[in-house]
């Protein structure tokens, strides 16, 4: 980083050729005239100018490599490795349904342009690869490691881009406004996922899943991507702060111990009624029988 004061000048790809180009142009012109008149010296001069040119180019390349923003070069190398790995995994595990070029088949949709967020959501929740055909993919243990999922996501991301995987940091979750998240949740999520995030059925076997196991990343990904029957909540509708607040509210709701005792599945009156009948009435009828049996004096 000591070289940084010079770096912008030396590393500027536009500036560098501007310095080098006159030399190369001159060299080429010189060599062209020399070829006809003085072949030996010209050849020698041509050789040296070629050397100079190559050195200059090499220096430029080295300088560029050293001084240019260093991360991206390594990233792109790693990226391309990840993409390669991801493509291999894709061809092995996904292409049967989604096609060799991810353009989709009769049994699976095209993945071009879905983006890495969609891949991460579907695979990290275990929905993909699909356990069985049905109305809706169900959540299960993921079949791939997070590293492999990231590789496949990187590969899919190269096919026409798409929504990038959102990052939800611990700090952002801790700082999130629970009240804001709750308001957004009740306005946008509760009508399908139920007030306490327990999920509810939709039509013909489809359902809004329970949010009991969703990670904050998966929650935000689902909002951005809109998997299956879920609508998309784009950044223009719920910004990053809002999405993080929704995730924080969901986590708060399910991880805070219920103050009133057992949650009964947080489903409200249906399990409450069941308990009132089975335990309440059932138990007290048992007491009636007991007292009745003890009466026979």
């Amino acid at each position: 980083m000591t070289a940084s004061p010079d770096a912008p000048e030396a590393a500027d790809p536009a500036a560098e050729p501007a310095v080098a180009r006159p030399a190369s142009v001159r060299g080429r012109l010189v060599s062209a005239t020399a070829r006809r008149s003085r072949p030996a010296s010209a050849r020698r001069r041509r050789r040296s100018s070629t050397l100079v040119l190559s050195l200059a180019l090499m220096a430029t390349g080295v300088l560029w490599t050293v001084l240019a923003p260093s991360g991206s070069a390594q990233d792109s190398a790693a990226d391309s490795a990840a993409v390669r790995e991801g493509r291999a995994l894709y061809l092995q595990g996904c292409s049967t349904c989604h096609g060799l070029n991810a353009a989709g088949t009769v049994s699976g949709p095209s993945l071009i342009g879905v983006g890495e967020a969609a891949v991460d959501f579907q695979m990290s929740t275990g929905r993909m690869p699909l356990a069985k055909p049905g109305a809706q993919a169900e959540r299960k243990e993921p079949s791939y490691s997070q590293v492999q999922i990231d590789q496949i996501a990187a590969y899919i991301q190269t096919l026409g881009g798409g929504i990038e995987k959102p990052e939800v940091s611990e700090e952002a979750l801790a700082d999130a406004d629970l009240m804001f998240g709750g308001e957004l949740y009740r306005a946008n999520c509760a009508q399908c996922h139920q007030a306490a995030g327990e999920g509810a059925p939709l039509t013909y076997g489809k359902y809004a899943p329970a949010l009991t196991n969703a990670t904050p990343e998966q929650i935000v990904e689902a909002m951005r991507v809109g998997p299956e029957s879920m609508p998309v909540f784009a950044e223009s509708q719920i910004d990053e702060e809002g999405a993080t607040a929704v995730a924080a509210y969901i986590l708060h709701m399910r991880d805070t111990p219920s103050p009133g005792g057992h949650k009964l599945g947080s489903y409200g009156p249906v399990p409450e009624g069941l308990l009132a009948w089975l335990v309440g009435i059932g138990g007290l009828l048992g007491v009636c029988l007991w007292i009745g049996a003890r009466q026979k004096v």
Partner: protein
Amino acid sequence: MTTTSGPGAPAPKLAKRPSPVRKMNRAVDERFHTQRSLRENLNKVFPDHWSFMIGEIALYSFVILLLTGIYLTLFFDPSNTEIIYDGSYVPLKGVEMSRAYASTLDISFDTRAGLVFRQIHHWAALLFVAAIIVHLFRVFFTGAYRKPREINWLIGVGLLVMGIFEGFAGYSLPDDLLSGTGLRIASSIAQSIPVVGTWASFLVFNGEWPGTNFLPRLYVAHILLIPGLLLALIGAHMGILWFQKHTDFPGPGKTEDNVVGHRVFPVFAVKSGGFFMMVFAMLALLGGLAQINPIWLFGPYDPSKVSSASQPDFYIGFLDGSTRLMPPWEFRGLGHTVAAVFWPTVILPGILFTLLALYPWLESKFTGDRESHNLLQRPREAPTRTAIGAMSITFYVVLWISGGNDVIAKTFSISLNAMTWAGRVGIIILPPIAYVVTKKLCIALNARDHEIAHHGIETGIIRQLPSGEFVEDHRPKPDPVPDHPVVPTHRFELSPPGEHGNGHGKTGVATRARKAVTGFFTEEKAEGGEEPVSGARH
């Protein structure tokens, strides 16, 4: 308890010093002449059967509802006024809500024992209605509603309907998302009534939904109007029961004209007191261990929001189910629209409760039975009635299950559409099946009883007769032995008959009242008041 000495038995340690209870009793009797009715009522006989205690569950739940309800009224503010919440539940801090909702949150989080009282209150409400329903089953299947008890049956049906309304009013008061959703549906149901619907809804809700001043009205209904009616009906129900005396199953020594069992004091009183404690214990357990109606999760009511799986409490569930099963049949004509919701939520319960209320008269009309009955029937002894009951319960349960069909569909991974159609088919074919199966079962059980009565009990011993024929030995059914003496021997006596309390029995009410008032103010004592209490007392 029934083996203690009878009223005439000598009591060795008599009247050394009257006990404080006796002194007190004498003092009260001298002034209010309570002795006679006290002795009569404390010695009233109640029959024993476990199924006669079901109604008590409802009664004791009601007592607990009153007690917990009084505590809740100290903190609840039934106001629609919008405020910004600033209590201790963090995720709602800063949210705009009604005072009703905010005060319910405060009861739940910032009032000592508020949450457990709220939960016991809500569980008691569920148990109250559930116990009424089970009690109704007992009364129905044993024929206890027959003449002369039709009016008490009618009062019981009134109690059930009032209990449902009272429960719904309580469910609607906190003004959370669930309450508001329920009230919105209630207002739609009111509006669906042809011609008068809109006006009825305006009358109840004080104008357009959701109105600005509805909760105070609902509160008055919930804590004064309906509980007052319930109390009056319970009083009438039990007064009639007291006056007409309890029914009993047939048994040795039991006739249409007597009551066999235990006296109110001490056996029945102790038993019932203990049972009250058991009901209280059950409600305390439920209220302390099982969360009910977590209003903080639902958020404040806002007509633009709704949560999936928004259900009413179980006693309204059958109407939710009927609405889910009913096809959307809407009719227009004569300038009026009959909304689809009218059939399953007004017509259906109207028919159901009318049939329920009129059942004693309907049965008597169809069977031609105009007799008075104090002895009960076992369910099998009236196969048609039992079959009608099973059919009705099946019908109700299909509606009930359909009311929670989304939760069931989600829990058991069934398509919601499949649940709806199963309910639609089930509501038509299951009740007749229940009717036929129950009737055949009853008839078969009667046939078995008949066989035992006439041929005795199979012994499993096979004998070969000299002729070569094999026969099975039958043992005659033994005569049933009475559980306890027909007339309970133990009479609770505060003072011997014929003394002061009894002495005024034949005088007129006015005389007695005058004497009582006089006795209260002057030195004049009722006759016998100064005599030492003696005689057979136990």
